[in-house]
């Protein structure tokens, strides 16, 4: 053990060193102050083809483990010791500033549009913001982790639902057909066109047409990537 390393033995002990990662396997670092939840999540991810490169119980440990492992994605709880407020969020911002290539998936007991927008604005790619209990929908959750690891976005459906329920949104989205509204919601959650095809059982061409129609009806410029598309849609919905 390197004696100069901050975080000490506890952090080092949890790091499962992987010297020759298989190509294509997504390397994940987990942070949550509940050991039970963290271990469960680690097992879940391992069983679903991810490689859990390290775990951390607080933000300081997380910094150390990320430095050591440089994973593809970090999954962190928003509230962690010592102040139990938003350490996870701050740690995520810190990690993004130093390693913009690492995807960040933030879990929280509650979701706020404001925090989602902040995360989207601060990160140039690969950011997720989900309710903690979404992990119980294993396939969905694994998909979200994968998306974030590859630079996409994952915004909790509850955030999107709140935005769509607003009276302002109701009148602004009046011009969209029912199908277009469904597609808009999925786009806002950060899903790619391909994922939308699969979800709604539509052909790629149909989805593309719908997406184009939505953008022109709402007066939005077509976005360069999925990440920017999410930000544009959410900002639009929030400001209506």
């Amino acid at each position: 053990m390197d004696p100069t390393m901050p975080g000490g033995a506890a952090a080092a002990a949890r790091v499962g060193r992987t010297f020759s990662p298989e190509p294509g396997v997504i390397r994940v670092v987990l942070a949550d102050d509940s050991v039970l939840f963290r271990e469960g999540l680690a097992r879940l991810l391992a069983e679903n083809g991810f490689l859990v490169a390290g775990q951390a119980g607080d933000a300081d440990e997380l910094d150390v483990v990320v430095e050591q492992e440089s994973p593809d994605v970090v999954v962190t709880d928003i509230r962690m010791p010592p102040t139990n407020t938003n350490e996870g969020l701050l740690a995520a911002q810190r990690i993004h500033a130093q390693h913009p290539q690492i995807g960040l998936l933030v879990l929280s007991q509650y979701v706020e549009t404001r925090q989602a927008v902040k995360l989207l604005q601060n990160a140039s790619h690969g950011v997720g913001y989900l309710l903690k209990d979404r992990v119980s929908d294993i396939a969905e959750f694994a998909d979200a982790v994968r998306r974030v690891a590859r630079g996409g976005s994952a915004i909790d459906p509850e955030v999107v639902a709140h935005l769509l329920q607003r009276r302002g949104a109701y009148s602004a989205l009046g011009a969209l057909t029912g199908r277009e509204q469904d597609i808009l919601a999925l786009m806002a959650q950060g899903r790619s066109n391909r994922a939308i095809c699969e979800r709604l059982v539509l052909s790629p061409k149909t989805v593309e047409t719908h997406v184009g129609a939505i953008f022109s009806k709402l007066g939005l410029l077509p976005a360069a990537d999925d990440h920017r598309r999410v930000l544009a849609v959410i900002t639009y919905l929030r400001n209506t």
Partner: protein
Amino acid sequence: MTRRRWGLAALGIMLMGWIIGGEWVSIHQHVPENHFIDAVGGLSFLVAGLVALDRRPRNRMGWLMIAYVAVSYLGNWGNLQVAVVPMIGTIGQQPGGAILAQMVLSYPTGRLRTRFERFVIGTIYAVAIGMSAVIALAYDPRADGCTRCAWEPAPFPSRHAVLTAISAGQRAGFFVFLLLIMALWLRWRRATPAERLGLAPLWVAASIYMVVGLMGTFASPDPTAQPFAYLVWELQSVLQIILPIVFLWGLLSTRLARSAVGDLVMELERPLLPGELRASLARALGDPSLDLLYALEGQGRWVNADGQPRFLPTPGGGRQARTATVVEREGEPLAALIHDPALDQGLVRAAAAAAGMAIVNERLQAEVRAQLEEVRASRQRIVEAGDAERRRVERNLHDGTQQRMATLALSLAMLRDRVAGDPAMAASLDQAAAELKLAIGELRELARGIHPAILTEEGLPAAVEALADRSSLPVRVRADFDERLPEPVEATAYFVVSESLANVAKYACASGAQVALWRRNGSLHVEVIDDGVGGADASRGSGLRGLEDRVSAVRGSFRVHTSPGGGTCVVAEIPCDT
């Protein structure tokens, strides 16, 4: 008459002879000046000094005035061309100016207070005496062509030494004059407001005297040569009459203040507004900073007229020291006057006695206000304790129950994954997972209702924005600050916004609402405006009533402006001193 008065009378007669004799000599020697004004000036100092010695026997000012008369008339007597008299007169009168400076600087006690003051006055004496000594040792009148002069030739006659001494003395005189001004300035700066009130008249008179004196010095070395210089010189003589009167007035002014106590009695005959008694006492005693505190019966605590708790000043405490004069009735403390230590104790007691009944009345009022204040403070404590408890419950839910339920959902999901081959088992696990999901959602909403986590974590503007995000109406939020406020303030403001927005959504039929948060004059202002049907009534709706109670519990104010069809505007102002 007492022996002391006989003594003073004898001294008075002697010095009167000294003054009149001095003038008689000046007249006979044809000294060009207004002898009448000069004599009145001297007599004025003499009478003022005698009165001061009689009325304020322990005050040194009287002796200083007497000394000034004795010394300055040596000059007049010096005109008598007999033997060594001119020399004694010329030399002896020199400290006169120094005595005058000492009087001004040590007024009204006659005592110098600081080392710097003693240094300045000492230097003035030293310059005067030094100059006299050189003249005494080296002046030879015959060298100036004065053959008639009775001045005995000096032991070491040197015209050069005398001229040098005179010009050096003049230069030094200018320097010590600056030192004196500095000492006076320091004295003014250190003076308490009550002292300044006493110092002001003398300093006005002394400044005019000094300015005129300076003008005289610069106008001409020989005042008889020029009409203007002569005029200035005479003006100075007139001021010499006024100066002792000002000295005496200051010394006896506590007597004047006593008559102000009489006015106080008249003033207190009519009913007083709260705080008016303090102002009346402050005016009567000439101490604008005077404070009046009341003792709460049997509690050993003090409050001001508004019932706010206060402490008596502790003895000592340097320049800003205050003195407490406690007024008692039947051995129990009733009230305390907190005042400038420079005030005369007897006078303060007299004023307190004059205000007796008014003090008793205002104390009763203060007691009632203190009790009200206590009730209000306990209401605030109850509200704050409630808030703290809600925060604690939310935190426990978040870190305990919610966390456990999330872990449980995770375990259930993994279990479900393993029993994929057993459809019956899988179905019942799916059902359990769905139930759990609902429970987690309900618990989340419950926790948010108890206390929104975002308010604890990110503060008021963020929490209000979150409210706006969740509102079914478009809500615009404007906040001119980002920093954290005290928890009770944040909780109250959040409560106001959240209830008001809920009301808007329920009753207003509005197309939108605006929330503004801003800080001004140590208060947080919260405003929620909608464009709905209006007509909200705080006296009927229990929701608005609850808001009003909640805001006033933290000393805030709450108003609702509304008109049918004109929307509703809810405004709360919550004090927050951060």
